[in-house]
């Protein structure tokens, strides 16, 4: 029997950002319901559920019960940090290919923001661990991912001459895209390069606007066979290729930390599986927890030469609406919302379907999606495509 080809048939997203009074588990359940409805399915049609969350402890496989799902053939919680969403789509695709399950909901949700608590405290507070190795690092003032990524970025700046101005161009370009995305948290709030430079420092060289948003909410997609997707409500989005890369930094002399990411390895493998090449990619949705992460990923995929991402991406006409490279077309994690790996997956599905409204990219046959977790430790790549 021929393998089923996997496709994304449903997409659901809750309200994003400072949405209080609801738990991550509630966001997750809502996102699944929205995705099922979007696909033209009923909850009872699901036979698989893959669940993940950020730092919330409220999301788990008991989501099955909350949704009233019975007789599932696939159910688990996964965690690969920022690479998780892409990974979940991969495992769901393989489950469909193998016949293990037919219609799988893939969901991610989080609720780091609490009312009357500073946004900046959302992640550090939950992670403070005054014990053991992490306690030593935290007590030394290295208590957040902001600092760790800034240390990575500085390596790139030192080796290749990348500048804060280069980072700023990425922040500004993505904010321009966000002005075309009504669900972006920074919709209606443009950003100039001057404002970027004037924004407060988090960890020099990172300004506030080098860092992603913090958001409450949930996102879900429905993965099923292409044949089934064709009979449903939405244009099918094919899952054509995928790969993961988890470099495992040695943390010793000659380490390439900050200079290369898993995208360098996973990108070519995912493109090969999809039977496509870089020059056929129409839309690029990369994980952008920081401006630097987007820059590094675009270099590692090969859209710009290694080490030249800073000046190349800052060239007029390169990024932003109307630019040569259609990157993070919804505003990304920097300017739309921070659903970890679901931010790029969500926008990739929107664009591949042709449902991007004012920000829709005209040619959207092939979409490259990255996920990145840890401090450049974990990576997933997806190649999505239209049904042709």
């Amino acid at each position, binding site marked *: 029997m021929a393998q089923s080809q996997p496709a994304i048939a449903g997409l659901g997203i809750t309200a994003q950002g400072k949405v209080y009074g609801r738990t991550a588990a509630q966001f997750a359940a809502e996102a699944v319901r929205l995705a099922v409805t979007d696909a033209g399915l009923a909850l009872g049609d699901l036979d698989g559920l893959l669940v993940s969350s950020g730092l919330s402890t409220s999301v788990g496989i008991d989501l099955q019960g909350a949704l009233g799902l019975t007789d599932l053939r696939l159910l688990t919680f996964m965690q690969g940090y920022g690479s998780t969403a892409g990974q979940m789509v991969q495992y769901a695709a393989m489950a469909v290919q193998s016949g293990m399950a037919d219609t799988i909901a893939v969901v991610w949700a989080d609720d780091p923001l609490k009312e009357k608590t500073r946004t900046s405290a959302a992640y550090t507070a939950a992670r403070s661990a005054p014990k053991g190795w992490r306690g*030593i*690092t935290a*007590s030394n*003032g*290295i208590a957040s991912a902001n600092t760790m990524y800034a240390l990575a970025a500085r390596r790139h700046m030192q080796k290749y001459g990348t500048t804060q101005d280069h980072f700023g161009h990425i922040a500004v370009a993505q904010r321009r895209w966000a002005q075309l995305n009504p669900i972006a948290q920074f919709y209606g709030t443009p950003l100039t390069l001057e404002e970027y430079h004037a924004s407060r420092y988090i*960890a*020099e060289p990172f300004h506030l606007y080098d860092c992603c948003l913090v958001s409450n909410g949930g996102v879900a997609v429905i993965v099923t066979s292409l044949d089934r997707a064709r009979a449903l409500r939405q244009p099918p989005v094919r899952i054509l290729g995928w790969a993961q890369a988890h470099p495992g930094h040695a943390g010793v002399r000659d380490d390439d930390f900050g200079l290369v990411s898993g995208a360098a390895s996973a990108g070519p493998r995912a493109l090969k599986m999809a039977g496509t090449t870089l020059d056929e990619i129409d839309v690029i949705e990369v994980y952008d927890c920081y401006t630097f992460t987007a820059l590094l990923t675009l270099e590692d995929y090969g859209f710009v030469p290694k080490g030249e991402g800073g000046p190349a991406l800052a060239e007029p006409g390169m990024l932003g609406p109307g630019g040569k490279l259609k990157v993070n077309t919804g505003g990304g994690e920097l300017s739309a919302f921070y659903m970890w790996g679901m931010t790029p997956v969500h926008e990739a599905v929107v664009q591949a379907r042709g449902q991007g409204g004012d920000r829709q990219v005209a040619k959207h046959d092939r979409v490259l999606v990255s996920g990145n977790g840890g401090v450049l430790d974990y990576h997933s790549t997806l190649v999505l495509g239209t049904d042709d």
Partner: protein
Amino acid sequence: MPRFAVRRDDATADFFDGTARGEFLLVKDTQTGEVLAPQFDPAVDPERYLRVPAAGTGTVVSWVVVHQREADGSVSRNPVAIVELDEGPWWWTSVTGADPDEDLLGRRVRVAFETVGDGEAIPYFTVIERGANEQ
């Protein structure tokens, strides 16, 4: 300077025994001669892996300046770095007392220890002044 007390767990007990003596312990692979980070667990093969004191000196391979909002509302600028220890392993640390406006890349640093509250002695690093005798 370490900011708050840190307690030991099973994985860090030996390391903190070392810091209490003023030693920064690494792990030596006696078969290859390679020196490993302190997080490596010698218990996987105690015949082969030994805890050994580091020289306590290293070189900054990356650094940033963390902006920290203090209790009084002011913002402090604290240089932190990845230090390549002379034995090879990297260590993420505060560089206490360094000028936040100075390019710290390549600067030589030395370990120090501070006991905060009733916690363990916590390692941090300080810049070795140029021209100073490192020993």
